[in-house]
């Protein structure tokens, strides 16, 4: 019996142990729940939000750039892009393999993915492929279930009306990779041209959208959104048709065409040739392509209009002559005999015309572009005064145009010579300067501004972006200006003028000045050899003279001032003037 009592006690004890252990297990659960739900609430709350909430950055649509007649020359196109959830980036390689054959990933695409992966960005998505084709979109739509965590987004990206024609003036857009820890890895900034200069206006500001997604990578709903604000539009003075015509005319020629409106200073045309494809650049150009452009001996990346430096050649004679009559009381009827050269000490200075022009006055010297006359003129003037006067016409200093990377050119004077060459100014150097050779360098834009200021007597300032402006007077005697203008008229319209062959056919008259920019020094031996100076055509391309022509029209009421530079194309009358004539004719016919 006692045994039964003992057993009973034992069984009761065991039931108690069982009950106690269950209580202990319950406490264990209680403890863990307390830990998870009370102590670690914020941690797990955050984790659950990270799971479901995905932020996508909304990129602003870049402002449109219009030409003077409100035709868009830089607008935007729709681009479908494929992105993957950032927290699923380990799927990228697998997906690329699986998508292969249906969606092509170029070397550049793979490179871009690498860059995107390394970048810290606020977005919860990583772009893995841009510019999806319709076939690719269709395939992805059809195979959606096989590729969770991929999303297709519709973006608006830069698109230029024309691949090549506006590239230098408008520039292009691209990423700024150098900015550390930037928030917006897919935002393109203006890299050159108008795009760079007016970037802040064109850019707009970004927004974001917060999605709720499920575990299968499907977007369930939109939680919150801040819209992107599109960039502002910009109107320019450029005239699409003139720009296109000028580009057409420059095909196969390295050089520049700049046209300025003489009334408002607007740049109607700014063509640099050869050009590059700014659409291709904006999409992101490959390293190979970039290197090949850098190595291109014709240097297509250089904007010759504002950064190409040329001796202005005989076009500068206009300023030398104006300086003489305006400031030195020079008698414009004074005559000199041109025998083909002028002696200064032991040195001989040659006229471009070997047999000489005979007896010429200042007017004829400009018309025929006689170098000897100007050598004689040079004997009477000081280079420092000439340099000072030239600055009024924006030579040797930048015009302040609203596109980046404009160069100052070079207007040499005695101080410059000492500073840069450590030598005193030589009289012979003044001889070279008055005919626009020697040290002097200017850009096609500067020559255009010079012409526009001669044509109007006003301080014309060039601007690509549309602005309403009035210009101050240059304070130069009207009679003197008229003398120069008339001589320019004779260059084009009189039979002995150097650009007579480029005379306009209609009622409107054009005034201009040819120039030949020497690239090499002609040696004494060469001049004295039997055949004379080597003909331009016989020289190596790189050593041939540049052909320059600057002009304005109509003569009686100046509207368009234009400069054409055709590199290594010989004398100004041969190549530059006919191009200018054709472009000017179009401008006068349709846009006067």
């Amino acid at each position, binding site marked *: 019996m006692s*045994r039964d009592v003992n*057993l*009973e006690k*034992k*069984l*009761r004890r*065991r*039931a108690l*142990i*069982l*009950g106690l252990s*269950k*209580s202990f*297990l*319950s406490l*264990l*659960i*209680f403890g*863990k*729940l*307390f830990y*998870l*739900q*009370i102590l*670690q*609430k914020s*941690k*797990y*709350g955050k*984790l*659950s*939000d990270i*799971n*479901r909430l995905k932020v996508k950055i909304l990129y602003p649509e870049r402002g449109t750039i219009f030409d003077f007649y409100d035709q868009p020359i830089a607008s935007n196109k729709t681009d479908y892009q494929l992105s993957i959830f950032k927290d699923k980036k380990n799927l990228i390689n697998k997906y690329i393999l699986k998508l292969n054959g249906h969606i092509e990933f170029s070397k550049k695409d793979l490179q871009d993915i690498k860059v995107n992966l390394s970048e810290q960005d606020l977005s919860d998505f990583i772009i893995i492929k841009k510019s999806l084709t319709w076939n690719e979109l269709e395939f992805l739509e059809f195979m959606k279930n096989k590729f969770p965590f991929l999303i297709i987004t519709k973006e608006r990206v830069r698109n230029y009306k024309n691949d090549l024609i506006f590239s230098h003036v408008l520039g292009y857009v691209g990423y700024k990779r150098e900015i550390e820890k930037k928030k917006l890895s897919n935002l393109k900034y203006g890299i050159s041209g108008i795009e760079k200069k007016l970037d802040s206006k064109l850019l707009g500001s970004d927004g974001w959208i917060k999605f*709720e*997604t*499920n*575990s*299968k990578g499907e977007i*369930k709903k939109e939680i919150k959104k801040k819209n992107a604000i599109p960039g502002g539009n910009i109107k320019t003075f450029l005239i699409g048709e003139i720009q296109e015509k000028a580009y057409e005319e420059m095909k196969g020629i390295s050089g520049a065409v700049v046209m300025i409106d003489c009334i408002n200073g607007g740049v109607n045309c700014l063509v640099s040739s050869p050009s590059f494809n700014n659409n291709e650049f904006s999409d992101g150009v490959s390293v190979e392509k970039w290197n090949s452009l850098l190595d291109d001996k014709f240097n297509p990346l250089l904007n010759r209009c504002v950064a190409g430096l040329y001796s202005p050649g005989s076009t500068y004679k206009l300023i030398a002559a104006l300086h003489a009559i305006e400031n030195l009381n020079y008698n414009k009827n004074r005559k000199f005999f041109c025998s083909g050269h002028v002696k200064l000490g032991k040195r001989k200075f040659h006229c471009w015309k070997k047999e000489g022009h005979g007896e010429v006055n200042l007017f004829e010297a400009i018309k025929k572009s006689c170098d000897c006359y100007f050598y004689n003129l040079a004997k009477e003037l000081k280079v420092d005064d000439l340099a000072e006067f030239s600055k009024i016409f924006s030579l040797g200093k930048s015009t302040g145009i609203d596109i980046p990377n404009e160069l100052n050119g070079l207007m040499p004077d005695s101080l410059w010579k000492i500073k840069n060459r450590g030598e005193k100014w030589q009289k012979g150097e003044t001889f070279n300067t008055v005919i626009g050779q020697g040290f002097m360098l200017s850009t096609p834009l500067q020559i255009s501004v010079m012409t526009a200021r001669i044509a109007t007597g006003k301080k014309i300032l060039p601007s690509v972006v549309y602005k309403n402006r009035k210009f101050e007077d240059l304070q130069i005697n009207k009679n003197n200006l008229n003398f120069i203008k008339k001589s320019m008229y004779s260059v084009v319209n009189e039979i002995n003028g150097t650009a007579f062959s480029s005379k306009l056919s209609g009622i409107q008259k054009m005034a201009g000045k040819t120039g030949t920019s020497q690239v090499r020094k002609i040696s004494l031996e060469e001049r004295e050899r039997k055949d004379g100076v080597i003909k331009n055509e016989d020289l190596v391309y790189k050593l041939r003279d540049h052909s320059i022509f600057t002009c304005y029209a109509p003569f009686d009421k100046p509207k368009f001032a234009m400069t054409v530079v055709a590199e290594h194309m010989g004398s100004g009358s041969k190549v530059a003037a006919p191009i200018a004539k054709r472009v000017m004719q179009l401008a006068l016919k349709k846009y006067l």
Partner: protein
Amino acid sequence: MSELIIKFKNLNWFFIFLVGFLSFVGLVMIYSATFGEESNILISHVYKIIFGFSLMILFGLVEIEFWKKNAYIFYFIGLVLLIIASFYGYLGKGARRWINFYGINFQPSEIMKIFLIVSLAKFFDEKKMHEPRDYLFLFVPLTLVVIPFILILIQPDLGTAMLILFVSVVIFFISGITFKFFGILGLLSLIITPYLWGGLKEYQKQRILTLFDPENDPLGSGYHIIQSQIAVGSGGTFGKGWTKGTQSHLDFLPEKHTDFIFSMLGEEFGFFGTISVVGLICLITYMAYYITGRFVHDNFNRIVGYGVITNFFFASFINMSMVIGILPIVGLPLPLVSYGGSSMLTYFIGFGIILSLDRKIKFN
């Protein structure tokens, strides 16, 4: 007839209310789990609750002697069904656990737990262990346990197999088997375990291994544990609100209407909700304990009572522990709350037995 009415009146209605409340919680959670989806799960669940509830009342009215008398027969039937299920059954989710019975999928391993409990109780009731040589007879109950255990393990259904083992150990313990015997048994299983481990499927091994380092492989087996803990933790004190759980409704939480229903409860009703359910389970367990504890002299009733309630409590404990990261994910539903017919019916039958025991005490 009037005898039946008296029996009916004598049922422990408070206990029935508690059980009913727990299944109501299940209904509420199943509603949320299927919210916004086209599915007949909710309706099916309602039918199962009604059917299970009726079964509980029915077995509450059946005398406990019915079980004692037929224990071994039931065990035999259960074993046959189990063999059919394990070898010829319907294959689903990589396991062979179901028998298709006139269009209804039925899981014999669940009901086998009840049959095993009553069989063990019958054995220990009849065999009193007094002499050391009596322990040789323990070969019989050990066999009763090991056969279904192995059959269920190879299905594979790790959760139910472990549960059967736990419940059996508790029955041995409650029957007064000496610690010496447990020592020998423990030693024996230590020797057998490596062989058992070798016999486990790779995914089962993986499930157990991830318990120790769930963060290591966030997209593999550990993913579910992490997501489940995030769901529970993010619920905070009062939860995100009914049907408002983001982890559950955006499918970060797997199997939200079955194994992980407690996580969804934690997410939508917070600490307040989880603690209430834990409390309810403890209260049901305590009441069943109280009832069972009064059978001092009747070994069968005592063992059946403790067995049934241990089955319920351990199943609840294992389910809740696995979804909050105390135990590995073994795949076991939360009694009366999770969706799933066979398991729910088994627990209802179990509570019917408790009701029957309670009635017997009142009658005495």
